């Protein structure tokens, strides 16, 4: 039989086998219950519930003071400042300390860039600016009464102690009340028909304690105008997180409060979004050592070679990659989606009856709101990755915006491959917001208020921008347009279990996680044509060598015969 016939037979057999496969599948007798293997394994129920109960039972209050027994707090408090006055009778220096913190001043001067930052000065691409909107924004200020520029930042009783130290969970500062809680029964949310009872200040004052995920989260989980909106790695699912969401904060595990990492000194809380520590090579931080280090870094606890000896290659990554890059593979991993974009340019469209319009998405989240414009959201978001050395440059009010180019509200600085830079995961939030065409700067506009210039009341951009610009001490040119903006946020929370960290293959491949990151050679991603050519050449030479060697052996063997 010739080779041709052999191949022909092989093709025929292939066809026959395929046909047979289909036929067999068709006539296969049903498996009866008697000859079926019905092995049912008994699965042990997880024991986490009982251990959680134990954990909760073991958690007793460690405080040496029962504030409900203090004479100073046996009063019928009518306002927040009254509570603070009582607190200061014992904690005499507390307000003075708070006055020096970013939580109070909302100002921060970046030592590297010399830019004047802080909530007071930065324009973001969420609700944009505090200026002219203090009545609403100050719901997240640790003070009472910040309604306008006349607020007295030196008055000690203006400090709000209980917003951080409440343990009842019943204290809530509502937008529009200039940092006060509601002292009387009040409809909330507006027009909802639901009412919030007057805040029981006496009970709250008598129940104060340490800060908690809930107190910190009452602002930091709701940044940008709502739950899960701003950061992507901070939302209310971290109040009682499961293991999958955050291995440090897991309620049934380590149960870290925010303050466990964000150690405070004289009420100044460590860890900053304005000047993060991108690189920490000083190993484990000895608590109490006054070396000015940031205690919130991963390395402050884990050191900079945290992986076990049997995985030395992983430790070799730490000079290029931030811990967060691998250990927070996605953000917004809880049940809540984070906002990914906000287009103010579409705001102001009303329904056919001239009323505010809201369009909900498939999951019930608002996709369009006349007050705010269009939104997009996402869960399990794959971060963008950038080289970062800890310096962030902001586009501030007054900085030139031409309307043509995308405006980077902030830019993470870093040099590829430099010792002071690491590859960091970030959430990049994109949007469109107004800018003053004549002044060529991002516009400040008056968003909320009971006056007739607030955009949420009149949907009149001109009026809102005029008011906002005047509040910022600038003359509005009279013309505005919308410009595309983006703003980045470092991803540092929602640390996943180690089993869920990025795998080698997720980066070491074409179109992997680090596809767009320049300045570093990543095997599997980067093709060096010379290495490939040399490899091919070696393989070819080996083949030729084997062929020659084999040929000589055959020749010599035949010659020997």
């Amino acid at each position, binding site marked *: 039989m010739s080779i041709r016939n052999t191949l022909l*037979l092989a093709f025929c*057999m292939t066809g026959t086998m395929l046909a047979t496969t289909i036929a067999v599948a068709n006539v296969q007798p049903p498996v009866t219950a008697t000859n079926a293997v019905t092995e049912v394994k008994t699965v042990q129920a997880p024991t986490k519930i009982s251990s959680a109960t134990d954990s909760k039972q073991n958690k007793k209050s460690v405080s040496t003071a029962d504030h409900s027994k203090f004479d100073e707090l046996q009063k019928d408090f009518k306002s927040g400042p009254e509570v603070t006055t009582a607190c200061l009778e014992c904690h005499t220096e507390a307000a003075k300390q708070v006055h020096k913190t970013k939580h109070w001043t909302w100002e921060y001067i970046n030592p590297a860039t010399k830019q004047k930052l802080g909530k007071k000065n930065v324009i973001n691409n969420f609700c944009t600016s505090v200026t002219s909107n203090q009545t609403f924004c100050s719901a997240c200020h640790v003070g009472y009464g910040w309604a306008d520029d006349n607020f007295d930042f030196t008055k000690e009783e203006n400090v709000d102690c209980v917003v951080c130290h409440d343990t009842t969970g019943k204290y809530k500062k509502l937008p529009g009340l200039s940092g006060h809680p509601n002292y009387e029964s009040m409809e909330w949310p507006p027009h909802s028909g639901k009412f919030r009872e007057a805040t029981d200040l006496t009970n709250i004052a008598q129940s104060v304690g340490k800060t908690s995920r809930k107190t910190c989260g009452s602002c930091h989980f709701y940044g940008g105008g709502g739950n899960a909106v701003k950061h992507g790695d901070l939302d209310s699912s971290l109040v009682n997180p499961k293991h999958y969401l955050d291995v440090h904060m897991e309620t049934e595990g380590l149960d870290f409060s925010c303050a466990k990492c964000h150690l405070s000194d004289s009420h100044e809380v460590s860890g900053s979004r304005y000047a993060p520590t991108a690189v920490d090579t000083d190993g484990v931080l000895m608590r109490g050592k006054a070396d000015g280090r940031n205690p919130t870094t991963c390395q402050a606890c884990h050191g900079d070679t945290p992986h076990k000896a049997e995985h030395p290659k992983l430790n070799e990554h730490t000079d290029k990659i931030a811990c967060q890059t691998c250990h927070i593979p996605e953000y917004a991993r809880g049940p809540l989606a984070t906002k990914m974009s906000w287009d103010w340019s579409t705001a102001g469209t009303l329904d056919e009856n001239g009323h505010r319009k809201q369009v909900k998405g498939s999951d019930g989240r608002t996709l369009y709101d006349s007050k705010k414009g269009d939104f997009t*959201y996402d869960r399990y978001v794959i971060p963008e990755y950038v080289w970062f050395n800890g310096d962030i440059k902001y586009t501030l009010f007054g900085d030139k915006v031409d309307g043509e180019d995308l405006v980077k509200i902030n830019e993470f600085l870093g040099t590829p491959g430099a010792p002071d830079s690491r590859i960091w995961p970030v959430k990049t939030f994109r949007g469109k917001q107004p800018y003053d065409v004549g002044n060529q700067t991002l516009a400040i506009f008056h968003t909320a208020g009971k006056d007739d210039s607030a955009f949420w009341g009149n949907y009149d951009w001109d009026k809102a921008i005029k008011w906002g610009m005047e509040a910022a001490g600038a003359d509005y040119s009279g013309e505005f347009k919308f410009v595309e903006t983006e703003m980045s946020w470092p991803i540092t929370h929602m640390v996943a279990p180690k089993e869920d960290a990025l795998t080698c293959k997720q980066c070491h491949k074409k179109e992997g996680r680090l596809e767009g990151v320049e300045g570093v050679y990543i095997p599997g991603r980067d093709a060096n044509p010379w290495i490939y050519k040399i490899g091919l050449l070696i393989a070819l030479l080996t083949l030729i060598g084997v062929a020659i060697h084999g040929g000589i052996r055959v020749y010599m063997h035949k010659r020997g015969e």
Partner: protein
Amino acid sequence: MSKAFLGIILGIFITAIFIMNSAGSLMFNEIESPFGVEETAARIQANVQSLASNGWKLSGLRNPAKAVAFDGGNVMPVLLVEACSTKYSGPILKDSNTQILSLLMPCSISVYKKDDGKTYVGMMNSGLLGQLFGSKVGGIMKQVEADQKVFVTFDPSKPAPPLIKIKPGGGSAGGNDQGGC
């Protein structure tokens, strides 16, 4: 003779390679969705309901990722839209020779997010699968295949419908909440 034997062996080998390589991908179809996971699932649900004339009803919405999260792990979002049509399931369930195909009921369409951040829709290749079980099942599954194409045809001009959260086996499928199919 030995060459004939070699040809047979070679044929078996090629067949095995062919089946191993392509059977998996042939049995399932995967397409990319322009929408997020929830919206894709909701649009599929709406499309299923639009084919009520063919007996299609929703019979469940599963979230397997939730179970993994409960046990402490992370997986990308995934939703299983379950639908059933007694018009198609009835004849298959009536026949003892094909009753085993109840294993494939209800019809599941998976919506998931991958590591590239995009949303995908995965479905069984009903047409091909049906062919494996004779002409009767093959004929039914051909119709299911045609309907499946409608399920995953999205009209972006239409607003996002709400996601219908039905417990698996519930809903109105198979005769007003009688347990799915």
